[in-house]
């Protein structure tokens, strides 16, 4: 169809006029690199033992979609209000933003989202399977592991029943961690949400060893989350003298509301979270706290921020002092202590300690032992690995004939003793049982591999349930893959906190709330590594009009008929949500 200029016939002016577009040239044939949309895994979500979808949570929080962000946490972790407070947040240690200015304050945003949901009395809507399964599951212990196991298993359709030895649920969260770090109402609100799912918690019901065999027929599986409760002794003369107390019962009495008066110098032996919490509680009750630890301060297993706050509150730490003997003289405890020094390395990489010189003595009005606990009963312990016993990352699954399937989780089996590891073990156990019951034992390992976040070991319930997160690649985005030109330096928010002198007046929570404005600003610092937030850079910078958007600008696709493979879309994607691959040829 040629539309020649008619004037050409009648005058001398010949004007060639174009009458077709360049669309006939399929410039896609020039391409030797092919861009493609591919969302990836953020390092923080991989580092989170609960596999929370942090990059997405921050994206939603930045947009002010607080409820959606909170629900996104709840898909992977039933306890955002607890973990926002007491988790040691390994996510932040792996945050890519750390290499730009400072890590995103992920835990503060988590706590903000949880507190906001509670303030608004939000009811979460969690999408994903809930069709009823025939198998019933009994859960021993209502600590974080048992509660989380019930939460995940209920979501997968299994009827659950929790048996708890003590008079209230919560485990260490209820009877260990002091209220200045985890207020009671916060814990109770999280537990209530689990009960709202229709899960019965039978308190005051300790299970005995016979339960495991009796459970057969009634329960297809038993999840054991009994925690650690038996104190490990110091093994020194005098440790059983009257007035020498265990740390955990002392913390439990505080959580029960007794506030014993304490005065004078108090020794707290140990270096873990228990020791630090005991020492800080003693300081609040009027005592003068001395933490005595046999290794160096940097070897203390307690979380660093806890140690720093304890020091601010006047707690004194004496490192490299091993207990030798305790005696009572004139109503005081005389503690004989052996100074130690570091000599080489232990198998676990910490400094090996050996005695160094003469013993010394210190006098105390009171002594607490807080060197840690172990399983309260031998039958709580996971059996050794064999044909029927599978040791997973954070739980152990025993499939011995004649018994229900037993899953040992929480402190009994996790790689690290922490709340989020208890949640991780519960999720791993729940997914393992689900695969076992629905697809059979032979599919267990493969099924677990499929729901890893990145390279694991953290797992995603959303991926297990076939949610969109499963379409992301397991590639973990590194800082060098972020286009930092699109981000401005901005300092991380500081945690508003009670002053040390205010803290010592009682057991009030010391970390204060942050405002919605601050939370949005902090969430806005997140790179959202690996995720598309529809910034449109790919679309805008395409020189070849080869990126198309759907209704409302949400969906994007590439027109390979014309895309020349220049790679600008992938290079200008701020957050590495695209890849550029060698063209394999047509």
């Amino acid at each position, binding site marked *: 169809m040629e539309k020649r200029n008619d004037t050409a016939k009648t005058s001398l002016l010949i004007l060639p006029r174009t009458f077709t577009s360049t669309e006939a*040239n399929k410039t896609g044939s020039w391409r030797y690199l092919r861009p493609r949309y591919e969302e990836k895994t953020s390092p923080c979500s991989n580092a989170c033992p609960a596999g929370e979808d942090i990059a997405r949570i921050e994206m939603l929080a930045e947009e002010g979609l607080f409820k959606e962000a909170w629900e996104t946490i709840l898909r992977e972790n039933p306890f955002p209000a607890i973990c926002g407070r007491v988790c040691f947040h390994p996510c932040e240690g792996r945050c890519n933003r750390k290499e730009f200015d400072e890590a995103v304050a992920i835990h503060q945003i988590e706590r903000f989202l949880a507190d906001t949901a509670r303030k608004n009395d939000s009811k979460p809507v969690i999408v994903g399977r809930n069709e009823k399964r025939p198998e019933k599951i009994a859960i021993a212990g209502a600590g974080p592991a048992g509660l989380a196991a019930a939460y995940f298993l209920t979501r997968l359709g299994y009827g659950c029943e929790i048996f708890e030895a003590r008079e209230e649920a919560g485990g260490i969260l209820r009877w260990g961690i002091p209220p200045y770090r985890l207020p009671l109402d916060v814990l109770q609100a999280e537990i209530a949400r689990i009960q709202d799912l229709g899960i019965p918690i039978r308190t005051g019901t300790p299970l005995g060893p016979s339960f495991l065999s009796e459970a057969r027929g009634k329960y297809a599986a038993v999840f054991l989350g009994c925690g650690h409760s038996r104190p490990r002794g110091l093994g020194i003369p005098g440790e059983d003298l009257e007035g020498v107390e265990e740390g955990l019962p002392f913390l439990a009495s505080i959580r029960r509301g007794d506030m014993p008066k304490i005065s004078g110098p108090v020794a707290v032996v140990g270096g873990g979270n228990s020791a630090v919490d005991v020492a800080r509680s003693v300081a609040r009750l009027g005592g003068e706290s001395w933490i005595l630890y046999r290794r160096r301060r940097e070897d203390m297993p307690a979380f660093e921020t806890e140690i720093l706050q304890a020091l601010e509150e006047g707690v004194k730490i004496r490192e490299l002092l091993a207990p030798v003997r305790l005696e009572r003289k004139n109503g005081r405890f005389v503690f004989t202590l052996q100074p130690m020094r570091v000599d080489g390395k232990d198998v676990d990489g910490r400094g090996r300690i050996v005695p160094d010189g003469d013993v010394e003595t210190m006098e105390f009005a009171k002594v607490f032992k807080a060197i840690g606990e172990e399983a309260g009963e031998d039958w709580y312990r996971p059996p050794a690995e064999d044909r029927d016993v599978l040791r997973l990352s954070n739980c152990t699954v025993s499939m011995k004939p004649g018994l229900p399937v037993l899953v040992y989780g929480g402190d009994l089996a996790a790689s690290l003793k922490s709340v989020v590891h208890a949640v991780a073990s519960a999720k791993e156990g729940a997914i393992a049982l689900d695969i076992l019951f629905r697809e059979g034992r032979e599919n267990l390992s493969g099924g677990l591999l499929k729901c890893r976040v990145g390279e694991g070991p953290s797992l995603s319930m959303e991926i297990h349930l076939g949610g969109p997160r499963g379409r992301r690649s397991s590639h973990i985005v590194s800082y060098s893959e972020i286009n930092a030109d699109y981000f401005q330096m901005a300092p991380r928010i500081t945690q508003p906190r009670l002053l040390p002198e205010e803290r010592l007046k009682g057991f009030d929570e010391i970390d204060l709330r942050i405002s919605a404005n601050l939370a949005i600003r902090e969430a806005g610092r997140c790179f959202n590594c690996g995720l598309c937030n529809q910034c449109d850079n790919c679309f805008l910078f395409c020189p070849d009009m*080869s990126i198309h958007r759907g209704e409302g600008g949400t969906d994007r696709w590439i027109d390979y008929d014309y895309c020349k493979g220049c790679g600008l879309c992938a290079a200008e994607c701020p957050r590495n949500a695209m890849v550029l691959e060698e063209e394999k040829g047509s």
Partner: protein
Amino acid sequence: MKLEVLDREYMYPGHVACPGCGAAIAMRFLLKTLGEKVIMVLPACCWSVIAGPYPQSTLKIPVIHSAFETGGAVATGVRAALDIQGDTETMVVTWAGDGGTFDIGFQALSGAVERNENFIYVCYDNEAYMNTGVQRSSSTPYGAWTTTTPGREWKKMRKKNIVEALVAHRIPYAATANIAFPEDLVTKVKKARDTKGSRFLHIFATCPTGWRIPSEMSVRIARMAVQTNIFPLYEVEDGVRYTINYKPKEFPVKEYFHLQGRFQHLTDEDLDHIQDMVNEDWQLLLRKAGERTP
């Protein structure tokens, strides 16, 4: 990034610009801002080819291909013809390369601007005669390799400051823009659209082919030109009122030069010298913008 521009595209795909061509990106932003009431004058340049071989066109607006040196003159004529028809709505836009602007088209441009012809003149600057195979122009920067400044004969003259030359005409509006800063570019196109008389936009447009860089670096290099102060973003109203639109991070120029094949021969001393020139130009601009006392 959200741009306040039209949803519609005024370019078809299938054009033959090199992969990653900055000039294609620049045109896309311009037309998405101006819309279809535009007649474009296109002196010989890469864009003469990108616009399509007869009988194809990649642009959805009327285009007049003109002789290399006549961008200013042809636009004057088109504007006069439209005025005679009583069409004051249609804008006349000349779209020319740096060769067609800084060099051969300079007298036509200067004449049109001196007469304050009512049109927008856009120079997309890829810093050489790219269409004919990378020959140096007066816009080619100090230090660059081109096929006419090869080997040790790399260009030893400074890049001509075209905006200042137009400012000397007291042009109502002159501005620099850059494909890596689309928001700023779009704002300036709008400002040009809403100004009467002659308007000049100098758009930095990376040429991966001529600059010897990978195509996916095209926008990054353009961004660095601004961040190193090599190509500051500023505008001048009525030839006197200067505004610097973006205060860059002032990265050392080295980083920009190291990434490009056309600068590979430069030594550290050469780069130090270039840094001094860039600093000097920036100080001069700050003074003109009243941000430093002389």
